[in-house]
């Protein structure tokens, strides 16, 4: 029977020759990731059920990345990182990226690939809903809770239901003013925040393959905003080159069988798409940037696992170079590697960091920061009824702090252009490509 990529990966990892959507199966896990917010609860579940002396099923498959509440005075937040440290010592875990050390990374979903933990054909589970980001590497990756993660720590397995696959095909190379964020906001706007519940979302087409790996991660990152179980993109040479440069572990590329069945196939022509925005308070409140130019802003935010990668800052800098921002603008790199790239990447001889400083932005240290509000002293947190445009992935009430704040989601191009004008702005006005 012909299977999709997702069905095939789950079949292999549960030792079966075939699986169909709707089947429940015990799957062997290749990597389990947890962080400072959900790690303490997961560790609690693990010890409560397997015993105080229990050991994790495989030390080499557990990755622990503190990233959410890092640069805060909140004592409870620090206590949670201590819980992780204690667990790492007790279990002697090799993959721990501790705060205050050279190993500190920042946002887990970007740290995982940078450190070689994402590999085609594998099963990656993480205690964070954006674990689906890693589907960009052609693997099955999804978010789970503390109970599931505690179970995996002890057994290395989890009971999963095989999802149907929705295909989204982008035809034609990306126009220079569009980014992956514009594509995924359009898809979510079309299918709604519940449009992919229990399903896999596969992205394909020459538009997708014209994107670099970081942009592909943006597509998969936001499948959860449509309720999707996992996002997936079949690996190509770009994927393999990235992965091979970061890991020696063997892996096997899995692709759709010819004749595999899909739930649906939706085709987009990239040249017909325009810079898009998700209006408050839901990622599916889609509008074109050019249609809502009357929205006046208090703040712009460029950061997070979906919009705080090197490619995102390169885009923002292209717009901000030589301009001044009109509203408070925060630049928060996802990881320490991205932070370093702000100094080394240049446009016409000027580093991205210099461009941001000259434009009047605040540049912060790598972490999740205000993407999810966090403790009151979090950098960039919306503490009152402010209007913010952000490259992050969620704009539910209270997501970035105050529940009276209004958050618009958009691509780094659109956010940077809007920061300069102080109102929501189509970036083509700056990129000189007005259609």
């Amino acid at each position, binding site marked *: 029977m012909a299977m999709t990529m997702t069905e095939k990966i789950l079949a292999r990892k549960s030792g079966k020759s075939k699986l169909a959507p709707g089947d*429940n199966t*015990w799957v062997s896990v290749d990597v389990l990731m947890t962080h400072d*917010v*959900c790690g*303490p*609860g997961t*560790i*609690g*579940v693990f010890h*409560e*059920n397997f015993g105080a002396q229990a050991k994790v099923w495989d030390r080499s498959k557990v990755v622990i990345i503190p990233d*959410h*509440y890092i640069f805060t005075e*909140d004592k*409870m*937040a620090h*206590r*949670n990182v201590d*819980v992780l440290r204690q667990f790492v010592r007790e279990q002697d875990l090799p993959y721990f990226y501790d705060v205050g050390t050279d190993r500190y990374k920042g946002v887990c979903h970007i740290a995982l690939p940078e450190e070689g933990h994402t590999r085609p054909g594998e099963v990656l589970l*993480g*205690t*964070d*809903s954006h*674990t689906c980001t890693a589907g960009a590497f052609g693997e099955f990756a*999804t*978010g*789970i*809770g*503390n*109970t*599931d993660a505690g*179970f995996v720590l002890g*057994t290395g*397995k989890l*009971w999963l239901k095989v999802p149907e696959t929705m295909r989204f095909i982008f035809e034609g190379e990306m126009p220079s003013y569009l980014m992956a964020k514009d594509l995924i906001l359009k898809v979510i706007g079309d299918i709604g*925040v*519940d449009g992919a*519940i*229990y399903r896999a979302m596969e992205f394909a087409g020459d538009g997708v393959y014209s994107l670099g790996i970081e942009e592909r991660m943006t597509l998969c990152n936001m499948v*959860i905003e449509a*309720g999707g*179980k996992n996002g997936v993109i079949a690996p190509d040479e770009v994927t393999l080159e990235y992965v091979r440069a970061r890991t020696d572990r063997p892996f096997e590329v899995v692709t759709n069988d010819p004749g595999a069945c899909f739930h649906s196939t939706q085709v987009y022509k990239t040249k017909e798409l325009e810079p898009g925005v998700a209006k408050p*308070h*839901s990622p599916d409140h889609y509008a074109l940037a050019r249609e809502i130019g009357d929205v006046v802003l208090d703040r712009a935010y460029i950061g997070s696992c979906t919009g705080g990668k090197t490619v995102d800052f390169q885009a923002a800098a292209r717009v901000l170079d030589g301009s001044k921002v009109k509203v408070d603008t925060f630049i928060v790199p996802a990881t320490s590697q991205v932070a370093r790239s702000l100094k080394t990447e240049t446009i016409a001889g000027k580093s991205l960091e210099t461009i941001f400083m000259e434009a009047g932005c605040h540049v912060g240290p790598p972490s999740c920061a205000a993407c*999810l*509000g*966090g*403790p*009151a002293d979090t950098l960039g947190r919306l503490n009152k009824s402010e209007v913010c445009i952000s490259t992050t992935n*969620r704009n*539910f*009430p*209270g*997501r970035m702090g105050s*529940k009276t704040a209004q958050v618009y989601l958009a691509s780094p191009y659109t956010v940077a252009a809007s920061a300069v004008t102080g109102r929501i702005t189509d970036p083509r006005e700056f990129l000189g490509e007005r259609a």
Partner: protein
Amino acid sequence: MKEIVRGRIYVLGDDIDTDQIIPAQHLVLNPAIAEEKQKLGTFALSSVPSEKAGLPRGHVPFIDPQTGRSPYSILAAGKNFGCGSSREHAPIALAAAGIEVVVAEFYARIFFRNVVNGGWMIPYETPAPLVDRIETGQEGEVDLKANELRVLTTGNRFPLKPLGDILPILEAGNLFAYAKEHADLLK
């Protein structure tokens, strides 16, 4: 598993996400510690915009500010309840606040898994939307044998979808208890 859950009903609309259920600043609480788990309950649903908190009129706090507990044991919601993050703090907070049953048109996937695998409450789906036919504060009972919600205040009865695949896990108590009963599954 109880056969009947009786108590007051709290009503919410569509797309109630995990940030509204338990705002991120409270995620520093560790649910593995009993007092902190209870504390999570005192913040349950605290980021629901006031006009949408306790339908149809809204502006009904879920948590009694005096006691820090909720007077409700049944939650009724629309579509896509629990969308957003994987934080198990969300069902834990609702359970700690006293919710025993949720009835919603359908759930976001991770939240649903967490509810079932953690054994935090009974998540029923409703075959038809019902939130515009009940009111916050009404007295109700969920009959887990008959798969039915009865609103005692009005006498209205609403069928609920049978729990299906998840019933054995809920009956066992949680994923761990279920897996112990079916040790062969893990081989």
